[in-house]
């Protein structure tokens, strides 16, 4: 975890508290609250987890345990254009690993991290349900199908001009 404390926006924290309240501050609703928290903040840094723990009256350790257990929750901020590469079986047998290697090589970041300029992040996910288009890559909400290793450059190019 980071040693420097993040300063969360007061209005966001307020919103989170209201979410917790709407779930009656029930410890059993932890996962639902975390889903909302990730919607509000984009990710779940330690500071957000502390707020959640306080609101639901559970230990920070427990919140941390749940956050790190589920792959949907992330403690690192995503890039402006989050890239998700499907590594489900259907995509794997149609060459998703090579596509992934190419993204890693071009962006020079490992899976789960964000480029220095905060533009792209790489994550893997398992089956987006478009196996007919395998291998599949998603950038934000946009889906790219039948991606080849040199298609990777083309995809990144689409986001080149945007700042």
């Amino acid at each position, binding site marked *: 975890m980071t040693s420097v404390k993040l300063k969360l926006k007061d209005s966001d924290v307020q919103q989170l508290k209201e979410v917790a309240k709407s779930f009656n501050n029930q410890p059993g609703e932890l996962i639902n609250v975390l889903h909302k928290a990730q919607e509000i903040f984009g990710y779940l840094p330690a500071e957000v987890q502390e707020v959640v723990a306080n609101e639901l009256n559970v230990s920070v350790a427990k919140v941390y345990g749940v956050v790190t257990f589920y792959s949907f929750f992330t403690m690192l901020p995503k890039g402006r254009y989050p890239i998700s590469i499907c590594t489900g*079986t259907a995509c794997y047998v149609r060459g998703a690993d090579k596509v992934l290697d190419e993204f890693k090589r071009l962006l020079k970041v490992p899976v789960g991290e964000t480029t220095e300029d905060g533009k792209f992040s790489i994550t893997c996910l398992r089956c987006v349900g478009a196996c007919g288009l395998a291998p599949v890559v998603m950038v934000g909400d946009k889906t790219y199908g039948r991606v080849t290793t040199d298609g990777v450059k083309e995809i990144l190019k689409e986001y080149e001009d945007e700042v």
Partner: protein
Amino acid sequence: MLVCGGTGCHASAGELLFENLKKEVQENDLKDEVQVVATGCFGFCEKGPIVKIIPDNTFYVQVKPEDAKELVSEHAIKGRKVKRLLYTDPVKKEQIQDSKHMGFYKKQLRIALRNCGMIDPENIDEYLAADGYEAMGRVLLEMKPEDAIQEVLDAGLRGRGGGGFPTGLKWQIASKNHADQKYVVCNADEGDPGAFMDRSILEGDPHTVLEAMVINGFCINATKGLIYIRAEYPLAIKRLKIAIDQAREYGLLGKDILGSGFDFDVEIRYGAGAFVCGEETALIHSMEGERCEPTFKPPFPAQSGYLGKPTNVNNVETYANIPVIFNKGAKWFASIGTEKSKGTKVFALAGKINNVGLIEVPMGITLREVIFEIGGGIQGGKKFKAVQTGGPSGGCLTDEHLDTPIDFDNLLAVGSMMGSGGMIVMDEDDCMVAVSQFYLEFTVEESCGKCSPCRIGNKRLYELLGKITKGQGTEDDLDNLRNLSDVIKDSSLCGLGQTSPNPVLSTLDNFYEEYLAHVNEQKCFAGQCKELIRYEIIPENCVGCTVCARNCPVNCISGERKQVHTIDQSLCIKCNACMEKCKFNAVTII
């Protein structure tokens, strides 16, 4: 005009196509004659987006948003088929006029998927028109719970979530446990990577699951239903929410349903992406807000489940069969399938096959029929090598097993399992050692870490496989793989660890030669294991077009125009770009 609105077709601009068709119909003043409906998945995902026109069942494939104009002006107005969008049979090379004549659909029997691709999932009236909620009405108003359970028992329905436990029996057990509150849970976690059966049912026909859950609740005297679904399925969640609201509005959920005096309501719970959450005890912990770690059974959920109350967990596809059993009768259902596996099974057919998609077939059909008739054979005319069923818990079968009739027991007997319905076809270019490593990587990532055989053992398996794919393995390692697999299977806490070595064991059994080639000759014949292969240029085929050199990301290919090129092995990262680009088959893997 039925337009596919499933996740796969959405991804290929299906939504825009739908909007365009609606606009065209509006502009041509055809609103009374032509109705454009966004349905659930047709199953033929390979060639999406799909537009089907009824009543003549014309089946258009790979339709683009800009084709909307022509479809409306030609087909709807002039009654002429748009030939260029019709499906062409890959073997006979002839255009097929309607879906009834497509090899893909001929051998299918759709029970659980009966409404997918037929009705608008966001409109309850369409479900009602397709006999929706009729079974529920009959059960609630005319049957006693024990008679309804008997009907499910007689049908011989077995759980489609993987275990294959008789559903009627499960309900019977849950009904006999008394408590002030019981729960019905629908397992829509679907963790098998590369499978999308349950999601497609929820996207295409959400009401069928709600109807079945009410019936289930009535049978075991539970008044609360919970659907546990992954947060990664936004479209399914949206449609489910709409369905629940509509059902409440129509009095089909809520208090005193249809005046029967029975109350039942449904809530949605979200998962957050962990394979083990699909295991029923883990799923229950997740719904309680905990880490989803499984616990030892007994106690079974039917005794002590959600919040310690008796809970009945069934899979989405299991539920989708229930209304049909009541509408058509247990006898009819039991007449389909094999002796011990009744009815049909939905499979997500994927991998190196021509027709990737979602299919539903009667139990007892052979793998050969599924792969070569429905699936249309192997892509690019390559050779079939293996088919993997059962996801990370299943095994790889070979051409020896192609004539095995598919059912729960037969697949187990040949070293795989039914699982939830993933079916991945592999060809000669797939390395079986690398495939088992792929599955083990998944298991290592997804193991919850609670019991050591699974946490540590699978990691060791993964490392051993890694060693072999790098050409550093020995024959002793192969023995170790087998021994360790047996220990993990015998000593793990839950179904995850008890089945996770299956991909390793089945490939060891069926592809031992391939393992031997890796350890003895340091060779990967499929050309997948990077450390064991080398890209070379065949001088006779190389015309010196420079395409490979220009596309090489690390500039390790040199050569003058019109001269034979060469690859500098010390720099090559084996990215495959040269091979992909070469039009003259001049790049080869050694």
